[in-house]
């Protein structure tokens, strides 16, 4: 009996692809992402899902969606371009990091070692995709009034959510305001902490238009392997030789 449904939701298939990939040796996996621009409806759910998943502070974003307006009234169209870090396989940001704080891991994901990063922001300037942001230490609750002893006040509000660290890279980080990642470069890491426990990246599961696909691009059975072979496929600024692992379907 086949283990596939006649018309399968891509999420179900990607989940199965993920399970198969995780059964391999980590170094044999090469994660990749495909974004179908024609399916993106510009809802920004992936951006917000990513912000919530990684508890990104103000001014830090891993996956903005660029909107472009094409034509002139009344013949106007809008086009949306979700823009995560494209996980270059020849990453310019890695070469410029003076303290080896950023590197490409075994699965081809460019990661940041927060405790090692000195915050020089050279990688931000060197990234041709402008895909990195710096954590300047800001808080959403900065302007919330302090009400000592009350139920709701800046400190209480912050501690309830904002001060609690995310589990990026599967690590337990200190409470916000006590060291890294404040002062560090930050970037999309394909939600490695979710992948490690068999969950797809937050931007994939929150995508309303089912425009984002993810998986092991070396697995011939995977959905992403099929999509990368599409004649519609393109990569951003391919002429730079950075070899992104994020593909777009035009």
């Amino acid at each position: 009996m086949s283990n596939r449904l006649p018309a399968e939701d891509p999420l179900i298939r990607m989940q199965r692809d993920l399970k198969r990939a995780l059964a391999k040796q980590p170094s044999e996996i090469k994660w990749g992402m495909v974004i179908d621009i024609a399916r993106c409806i510009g809802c920004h759910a992936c951006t917000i899902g990513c912000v919530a998943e990684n508890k990104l502070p103000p001014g830090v974003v891993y996956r903005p969606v660029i909107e472009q307006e094409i034509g002139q009234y009344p013949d106007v169209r809008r086009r949306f371009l979700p823009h995560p870090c494209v996980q270059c396989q020849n990453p310019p940001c890695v070469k410029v990091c003076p303290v080896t704080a950023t590197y490409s891991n075994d699965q081809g994901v460019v990661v940041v070692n927060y405790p090692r990063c000195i915050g020089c922001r050279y990688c931000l300037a060197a990234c041709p995709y402008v895909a990195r942001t710096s954590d300047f230490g800001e808080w959403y609750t900065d302007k919330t009034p302090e009400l000592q002893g009350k139920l709701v006040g800046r400190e209480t509000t912050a501690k309830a959510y904002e001060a609690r660290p995310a589990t990026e890279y599967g690590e337990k980080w200190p409470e916000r305001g006590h060291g890294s990642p404040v002062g560090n470069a930050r970037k999309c890491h394909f939600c490695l902490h979710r992948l490690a426990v068999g969950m797809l990246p937050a931007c994939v599961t929150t995508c309303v238009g089912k425009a984002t696909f993810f998986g092991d691009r070396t697995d011939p059975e995977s959905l992403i392997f099929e999509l990368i072979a599409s004649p519609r496929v393109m990569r951003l600024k391919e002429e730079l030789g950075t070899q992104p692992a994020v593909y777009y379907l035009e």
Partner: protein
Amino acid sequence: MNKNAFRILLGLGVIGLIAGSVGMWARLQYGHIPMAYGSYVPWGLWVAFDLIFLGLTAGAWIIVLLTYGFGMKQFERLGPLAVLTLLVSLLCEGIIISLDLGQPMRVYRFLVTPSFTSMLTWLVVCITAMWIIYLSMFYFLLRGKFAKADADADKDKYRAGVRILALINIPVGFVFFAVQGAFFAVMLNRPLWSSALTPVVFMAAAFLSGGALVTAMAAIFDRDKAVVIPLGRIVLVLLVAFLLLEAVQFFIGYQSNSPGAVAALNMIAFGPNWWVFWIVHLLIGSLVPLLFLLFRPDDSRSVAWACLLIVITFLAVRYNAVVPDLAAYNLEGLDQFFVHPRLSQAYTPNLYEWLVSLWVVSLWVVVFLLGTRWLPVIPAEKGGEQHAS
């Protein structure tokens, strides 16, 4: 320098330190939160000042090159003064760039986990080498001065030490100034930086600003025409060479019609800070000094003013070398749909950044002036100031 001028300058330096301490307090208390730079323009005023201080070190290098590379012995006595400018500049450079780091306490990482593919690592290696060479050279120069008048053997020993260090310093310094430009040039796809011309422009900028600084110092503290006039001529050549390189950069940028390069050049020449380029840099920092140096080349006072104008206005050159390239390069629409001040292509340094810069510049002035007062860096018969006993 006469006593009154010394006191006024020292007083201004102390006032600058006091006023700038507000900015320093904000930086140390609140980190980067009060500052205006963001993720899309990640470097701002402090990096421009960092480049200023790095460039000013070229003055000492030029004196060493002239004295020991080309055997022009009349410049030898400027050695201690020039080395003092270099050491104070390196000190201020270290402070301002540390303040710019997100995690300044981790600078030890350069030693523990260095990456030699990064130009920043090489810049730190060069800065460390310059510290070692010039601190040692300063020691030998001062010991040479302190040696008893009849102790010729001692003097020869110290002179030999200086000579060896000077010869080592010539190639090291050359690499040091080239790496400053290479730091920017190696970045892919940057509109103006990504060019083989960038290291040459940065070297010319360093030689011009450093040369102008040391010439001004010679005119103020040494006042010997035999030293100041030839240095003024060298600065004139450096100024013309730098302006030519700048013109080439503009010509190639506009002729290439590359949208990024044109946007960056337009931002420099016709953007909101157009006056920084046309008035501060080209008029006050280039044309006026050029006229002084061309038409009054034998007047020490004119040479000194020309050089001071070049040094003071050089921030305009460094600011335009850093910010417009970052501000002009973007992905269309990137900053319009996830909106935050840190995610903006627009950057104007705010008061806190200026105050921190003021503090560091004031520190330069105070340490340098006290250095000239307390250390025998000025020929005794020239300075008009008694050294502290």
